[in-house]
């Protein structure tokens, strides 16, 4: 049964989702306007997943993210100014402009980085979880990855290690039905990635990834287990990415009707309805929240536009702890 969630928490979750949506929408415009270099993978449509999971996480908890990382970072408390400036490649960005969209991180906030390598996260998540366990903490790690990433060998190795050592990780599959252009039916013989939990004798559950409350509930169970030393779980969230795989992708591989159908399942209005029913928020409240967040996003754009580029000599910094080495 669903535990009663405090209004404050519900509102925070709603704000997280809206922030992701508005941030990503703005990023999409900026990319189209040629302001942002490199590859940009947006999280629009999948906001409920990161939000529902990260709503449980505290400062001592970690996440590992993916190439599609903005949503995870925002949900875990990432700073919009530093995120946006990083997308611009400015020195005020999270990574001083060295990382870009695929490498934003904030280790102090427990964000072990977006990751340009599909399947890069599970082994690192297991490692961070081992670090927690070794030091006797009750932290957990949430490891996000896609449906297609579940075919990478590292997924298997990470889950196996976490299960045999009962490490506090929750593995969160964002099943948006595609790996770039390849539909799930063409990349694996199963329709529920959660079925793979069996291979490690850990719980595996499927949830509606567009229902933030469902995600919240499932993640809560798994995290409780993890904090209690009972080991990892696998949660599969069925969702959909509205945009192309990356900005600029013409998406020739999926029918418009499919996209339209999923856009009708938009997680944000759905949550709004629930919140209003619960009396947590009114239409006016929603408008005010959207306005406030939209201003924050604009402020982040302004901050980024006005920020300086990295100085050329900074290219050599940050390769090694303790200063650069002679080679």
């Amino acid at each position, binding site marked *: 049964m669903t535990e009663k969630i405090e209004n404050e928490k519900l509102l925070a979750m709603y704000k997280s989702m809206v922030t992701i949506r508005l941030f990503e929408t703005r990023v999409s415009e900026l990319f189209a306007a040629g302001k942002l270099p490199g590859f940009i993978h947006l999280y629009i449509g999948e906001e409920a997943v990161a939000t529902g999971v990260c709503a449980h996480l505290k400062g001592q908890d970690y996440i590992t993210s993916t190439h599609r990382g903005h949503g995870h970072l925002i949900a875990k408390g990432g700073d919009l100014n530093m995120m946006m400036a990083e997308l611009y490649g400015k020195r005020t960005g999270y990574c001083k402009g060295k990382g870009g969209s695929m490498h934003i991180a904030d280790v102090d906030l427990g964000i072990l980085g977006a990751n340009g390598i599909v399947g890069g996260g599970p082994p690192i998540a297991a490692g961070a979880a081992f670090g927690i366990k070794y030091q006797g903490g009750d932290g957990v790690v949430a490891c996000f990855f896609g449906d297609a990433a579940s075919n990478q060998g590292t997924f298997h190795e990470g889950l196996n290690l976490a299960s045999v050592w009962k490490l506090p990780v929750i593995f969160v599959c964002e099943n948006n039905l595609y790996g*770039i*252009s390849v539909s799930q039916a063409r990349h694996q013989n199963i329709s529920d990635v959660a079925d793979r939990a069996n291979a490690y004798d850990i719980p595996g559950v499927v949830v509606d990834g567009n229902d933030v409350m469902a995600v919240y509930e499932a993640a809560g169970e798994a995290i409780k287990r993890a904090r209690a030393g009972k080991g990892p779980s696998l949660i599969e969230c069925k969702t959909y990415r509205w945009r192309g795989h990356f900005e600029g992708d013409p998406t020739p591989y999926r029918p418009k009707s499919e996209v339209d159908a999923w856009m009708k399942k938009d997680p944000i209005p759905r949550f709004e309805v629930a919140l209003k029913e619960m009396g947590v928020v009114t239409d006016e409240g929603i408008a005010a929240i959207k306005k406030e967040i939209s201003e924050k996003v604009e402020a982040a754009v302004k901050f980024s536009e006005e920020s300086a580029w990295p100085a050329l000599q900074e290219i050599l910094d940050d390769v090694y702890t303790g200063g650069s080495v002679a080679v």
Partner: protein
Amino acid sequence: MRTLTFANALNEALRQEMRRNPKVYIAGEDVGLYGGIYGVTAGLFAEFGEDRVKDTPISESAIIGMAVGSSAAGLIPVVEIMFVDFIGVCMDQLLNQAAKMKYMFGGKAKLPMVLRTTQGAGHGAAAQHSQCLESWFMHVPGLKVVVPSTPYDAKGLLTTAMRDGNPVVFLEHKYLYGTIEGEVPEEQYEIPFGKADIKRQGKDVTVVATMHMVHKALAAAELLAKDGVSVEVVDPRTLTPFDEDTIIESVKKTHRLVVVTEEVAHAGSSAEIAARVADKAFDYLDAGIKRVTAPFTPVPFSPVLEQEFIPSEAKIIEAIHEVLGKAVPA
């Protein structure tokens, strides 16, 4: 002659060889329905169908293993690893299986296969999508390593690769795909492996450059010509086998060598080229050998830093001045 982009020259090489030889098939991530992230395999799925142009799961070890197994079973796989940066998840199948099988089996195996992949910086793709790793492949006996710089070379070398009978790592610099156009014959042709190409004749200094850097070196040579400096630009085209002779002949003529590659220098292909000349053509050298490469850092994201990372014409000119001009500093 009609011109093609670098990407289209590769596409044509694949298409023509697939028409000619039913044993050739393609596999990789998003190479089919999507036509490849950079469009190199565009249209092949439509022409040859999904039996011959295979979209794979994200399982790079399985992709290379598939090439190895199907090659041993009589096919000629052309598999794509989307970015060379991903090779770390699947290198074993190349290093210990593809490259070594023939030798380990006492010669009793034949493994024709091509592994195509893209490398290099210039698109703001950052540290995990912009590396150059040719030296890793060079260091593996049993592999051949191809590094084309022009559409003409790309088509001819890829055709050779599909007929070579060995595991060939075919490296495509992503910056060249759309930006470099050149004349390409309509018909099929092969360019032999192990034959460097003198991309520009000169007499004062030899510049050996690869891939994207060939174009930078040519631009630098053009600028220097105005100052009366005559630069010979040599493009090895394949790193294994390696055409030492052409480079040594060039150095015998110019007495000076600058090596330009986009990779980091440390244990890179540039080191190998310099070391060979320092051994075999020492008596002809009038100056120390300079290398122009990326700094010893991961590839940075920000466009200003990325441009600083990529060896520039200015740095090439500076190195040429150094080997021509002043005594090598002690």
